[in-house]
């Protein structure tokens, strides 16, 4: 145990299994179908569906880093927040079109990720983890310092979003918002799957398993990592933009440490390194939060605290395997 440094241990997050790659359209379609069924079953909870979809997009962006590239980060909120503030400021200062806002937020997230990644990705393990926290905290301090631009503690709220494509206006019920968020999430899942299955994605997985080997094979390791970091930043930025556009307000908490930590928790809850885990984790976590927090915010902490400890002590994947093995075992013994 002592020979594994924390840095090496960080890369032991279950690497993506080498198996036949699922077709890129399967997960997006399944997600859309699940969202459709959910909105039929609970038609008064459309806002929740939209929130789950945007959260899932954030967790998806984290999965590309933690699950695929093996980059441990606790600063994903920085990229999310930049997207949210970018979209809000764009709507306030330039134009209220949501799709243009998405593009701006995607560019902002990707540029910030590429720029910060060029510095951050020179480090690994615990140092990297701390530096990502510091980076997000620096952005948070900046946002609260320049309150003229960001609204500081009050949040940025004096912007209006025009209807999507001039046709569908965001309603209070959250119907348009939910459809919008789920559509973008499906597009993000499709893009991520395509990227993960591409030669670029395969080289990222190779880097996760052994940096030294990939470097020896001639892969420009740093460049590839910055590339995936930028892609992740783009998705996180888009997720922030959707949140800003649906809610009509951007608060300082969109840059905060709890958001980064929660996203990581959701990812591990759903399973890192296979993209679908982000959707599952975000759904389970957000539903738990919604139910428990509506009773009492401290109950929520009880529930999530115990759930987290239980997930580590009895990992769901391993437990499922055990149960499955037992089911199979009994099936084999009974002819």
């Amino acid at each position, binding site marked *: 145990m002592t020979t594994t440094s924390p840095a090496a241990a*960080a890369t032991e997050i279950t690497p993506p299994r080498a198996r036949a790659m699922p077709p890129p359209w399967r997960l997006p379609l399944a997600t859309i179908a699940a969202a459709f069924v959910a909105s039929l079953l609970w038609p008064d909870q459309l806002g929740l569906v939209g929130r789950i979809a945007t959260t899932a997009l954030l967790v998806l962006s984290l999965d590309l880093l933690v699950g695929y590239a093996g980059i441990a980060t606790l600063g994903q909120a920085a990229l999310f927040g930049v997207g949210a503030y970018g979209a809000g400021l764009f709507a306030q200062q330039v134009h209220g079109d949501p799709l243009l806002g998405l593009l701006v937020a995607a560019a902002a997230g990707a540029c910030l990720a590429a720029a910060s990644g060029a510095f951050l990705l020179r480090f690994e393990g615990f140092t990297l983890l701390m530096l990502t*926290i510091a980076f997000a905290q620096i952005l948070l301090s900046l946002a609260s310092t320049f309150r003229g631009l960001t609204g500081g503690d009050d949040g940025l709220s004096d912007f209006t979003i025009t209807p999507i494509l001039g046709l569908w206006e965001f309603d209070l019920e959250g119907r348009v918002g939910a459809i919008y968020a789920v559509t973008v999430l499906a597009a993000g899942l499709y893009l991520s799957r395509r990227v993960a299955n591409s030669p670029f994605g395969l080289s990222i997985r190779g880097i996760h398993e052994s940096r030294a080997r990939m470097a020896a094979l001639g892969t420009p390791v740093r460049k590839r990592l910055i590339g995936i970091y930028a892609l992740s930043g783009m998705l996180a930025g888009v997720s922030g933009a959707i949140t800003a556009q649906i809610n009509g307000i951007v608060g300082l908490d969109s840059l905060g440490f709890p958001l980064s930590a929660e996203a990581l928790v959701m990812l591990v809850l759903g399973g890192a390194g296979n993209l679908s885990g982000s959707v599952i984790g975000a759904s389970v976590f957000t539903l738990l939060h919604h139910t428990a927090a509506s009773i009492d915010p401290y109950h929520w902490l009880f529930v999530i605290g115990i759930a987290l400890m239980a997930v580590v002590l009895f990992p769901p994947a391993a437990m499922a395997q055990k149960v499955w093995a037992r089911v199979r075992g009994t099936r084999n013994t009974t002819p």
Partner: protein
Amino acid sequence: MTLLLNILVDGVAYGMVLFVMAVGLSITLGLMKFVNLSHGAFAMAGGYGVAVLVGSHGWNFWAALLVALIATGVFGAALEALILRHLYRRPELQQVLFTIGLTFFLVATANAIFGPQVRSIPLPASLSGSVDLGFRTLPTQRVFVLLAGVAAAALLTWIIARTRFGIWIRASVDHADAASGLGIPIRLVQCLSFGAGAALAGLGGVLGAELMPLEPYYPLKYLVLMLVVVAVGGMGSIPGSLCTALVLGTVDTASKYLVSEWGSLLFFVAMGLLLAWRPRGILTR
């Protein structure tokens, strides 16, 4: 000049509090390679212990301090022996998740027991006055914080450098398997140092109660501060943690005095620069 002196005194006092709170975490990371994000809960436990014993039961401050620190240490050692030691061989991410979960759980527990409002620690008469140094006066509480920090640092350095137990700790930090192969009772070393780290964190919680008010969210609020001290100081390095805590404490205090509207910006910029300069610890090349 007065301003500079104020910054220095407050900054060093703040740095001492940070050091006492974080040094246990640093030892845990160096010794067991265990990422314990629930370390702040020990600081909270010590603080609440004293606050309740003195405030609600009318105990003497010093007796309450002693009992609270011992109780926090025993709590930490028991937690280590019963649960946490099974997680030492797990990947870093799982340790992070488990201890974040534990922190959430303890936050909710603290709220259930002590309520959501801020608790203050009533100071005894011997600490509530001020000391005249000739050129200026200092609150006695601040002097106490400084002295306690120096004492803790000196005691730790002495234990690590001069005692048999310190030799065990150093050997286990360098190579745990080899150390246990040589007959060092590694489980005892791990459990005792975890308990001692918890007790020190509890002391930090009491010392820092004026700067960091006691409330249920305490362990989450000041977690990042402790992690920063440990990361910049280098895992397992006591002089490194002390240096870092003093530098960052002074930087943060100076920025609060001079450019308060920037919040903790300078603190994190300083941290980023120090980490980029010496990624393996401020005193390690």
